[in-house]
């Protein structure tokens, strides 16, 4: 091709790449308990991108590979093929510490053995920035306090983690993730044990934070309507295969959703302009 055309395509590519903070390129995975046997589970090659300030939802029924995909994005698992790039760096090759400075994960918490106070908990988010024998600095304390403020949980600062409600705990966990000052914020089914009010509060906060701090947010969920309402992009998974990737309007097609979720439903435009899913009873 001509020199100008080549220059144009490469600069187009460069611009497209510079927009995308997170780039998932042909990532696949297979898990088998026994190397001799066939894999129990596979994730087929998937590609998508996400920009700063964007919320991306990974949507699908149980056992569709959502959590696995999230772990691959987090760099916790090594893909069988392909790679995950964060600002051009392969996430899996980063050291755990560097990774923790750029990627923060919010997931179902293990039971706390010796409970701590909320502020201690949030301060743990500063760990990736410390030397091995360091103590937290004034700056760390300020960042932790700000993180709690950003999720509206400042009043919980002195409370014990095992004595606050599920929704409050989720907010503190999110604050710890924010204290890491990440580029990428990953959440694994964050609304699972929350009541509706708390769910909405959390997602509102995520949208605001993504916009204010330019986080790239990836949320794994099976809540159809929440994903539709808050996500800028949706990756629809079924049994390890990404069936469609795009904005909610393009992904929320009735036949497609019925096939994935195995239940009759109807899709209509909601009051906010985004699609709204109604589950129909009886088969």
């Amino acid at each position, binding site marked *: 091709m001509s020199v100008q055309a080549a220059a144009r395509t490469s600069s187009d590519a460069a611009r497209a790449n510079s927009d995308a903070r997170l780039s998932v390129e042909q990532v696949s995975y297979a898990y088998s308990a026994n190397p001799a046997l066939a894999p129990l589970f596979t994730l087929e090659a998937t590609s998508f991108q996400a920009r700063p300030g964007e919320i991306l939802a990974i949507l699908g029924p149980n056992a569709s590979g959502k959590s696995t995909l999230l772990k691959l994005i987090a760099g916790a698992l090594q893909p069988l093929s392909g790679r995950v790039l964060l600002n051009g760096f392969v996430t899996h090759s980063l050291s*755990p510490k560097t990774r923790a400075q750029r990627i923060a994960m919010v*997931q179902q918490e*293990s039971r706390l*053995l010796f409970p701590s106070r909320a502020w201690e908990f949030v301060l*743990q*988010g500063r760990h990736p920035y410390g030397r091995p*024998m360091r103590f*937290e600095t004034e700056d760390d*304390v300020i960042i932790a306090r700000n993180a709690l403020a950003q999720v509206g949980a400042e009043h919980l*600062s002195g409370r014990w983690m095992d004595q606050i409600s599920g929704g409050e705990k989720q907010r503190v966990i999110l604050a710890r993730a924010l204290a890491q000052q990440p580029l990428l914020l990953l959440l694994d089914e964050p609304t699972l044990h929350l009541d509706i009010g708390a769910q909405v509060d959390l997602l509102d906060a995520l949208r605001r934070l993504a916009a204010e701090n330019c986080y790239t947010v990836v949320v794994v969920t099976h809540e159809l309507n929440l994903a539709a309402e808050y996500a800028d992009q949706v990756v629809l998974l079924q049994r390890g295969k990404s069936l469609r990737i795009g904005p909610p309007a393009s992904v929320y097609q009735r036949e497609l959703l019925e096939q994935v979720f195995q239940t009759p439903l109807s899709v209509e435009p909601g009051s906010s302009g985004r699609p709204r899913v109604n589950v129909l009873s009886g088969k």
Partner: protein
Amino acid sequence: MRPLTLQRLLLRCAALAAVLFVVVVVALKLGAVPVSLYGLGRDLIRVMLGQSRGISTDYGMIVIDIRLPRILLGIVVGASLSVAGTSFQALLRNPLADPYVLGVSSGAALGAILALIVEPHLAISPEFAALFTPVGAFLGATATIAAVYFLGRRGGQIDSSTLLLAGIISASFLSAIILFLMTTLIGRDMRGMAFWLMGDLSTPLQQKLRWVLGVGFFAAAGAIYTTAADLNLLLAGEKEAMHLGVDVPRVRLVVYIAASVLTGLAVSVSGAIGYVGLLVPHAMRLLFGSDHRILLPAAAFGGAIAVVIADTLARTVVAPAELPVGAMTAMAGAPLFIYLLRRRLA
């Protein structure tokens, strides 16, 4: 919101050190022979200047040669066991873990018994003969550490639950062998073994062993302390710790080896003193919280204090005879355990 700072850490350590100092002074005064602190101080200076011959009285010699080393031994053993116990509780995410749960003490006991059985049949020079039992015990401990490590792995790394199972099974198996040996080798030969199994500080240590013990303690405890912040996160959950930047496999390996070495050293010289490694961490946690950067040094001091007190009681309450220190820690430990249990539930 008041995070731990270096200053706060040092203050607390200084306070604990002061308590330990007072305990040591009292322990020095108690015993078979009377001692004046002034005379003791003078004698100590003489010893440090290498003028051991100039020690004023026979009694001074007794204190310097017997009582003081025994107290120092108690300090190192108590500190080792408590730091090891704290580490295992974090590593295994189990508040009931103590230094012996992974079988190190059973391995050491077996090593000691085998050394006792074998030693008369070998031609060793007398000075090595005295080393034989502690060295045998430490070799037994090391072998157990390696075996449990290999059994406790999953996917090439230490897995906490598998490790715990491997340790418990090993301890069980080794104890069975020990019981078998003890019943088949009847006679007074094994009487000393019974005391060893309970924990006993009365055996004076040779000079070489003292150095090994001291250096070993600081090296291993130091290694664990470098992972103190990581341990805090590890307690919150292994996945979470990894996502917060902790190199979980490396931390697990370092803590496992270092804590096992601490236990092995302590047990090789003093038998299996119980309850210290289990309860001192909990008591210190109640006083200072779960941050391992303060908890680990606090446990070291706390363990030292506990063992020195227990040993002083052990050697004075039935004078001129003495009880094994393990009996004292058990008698004090069980009620304390109950108290701590109720406190947590309250």
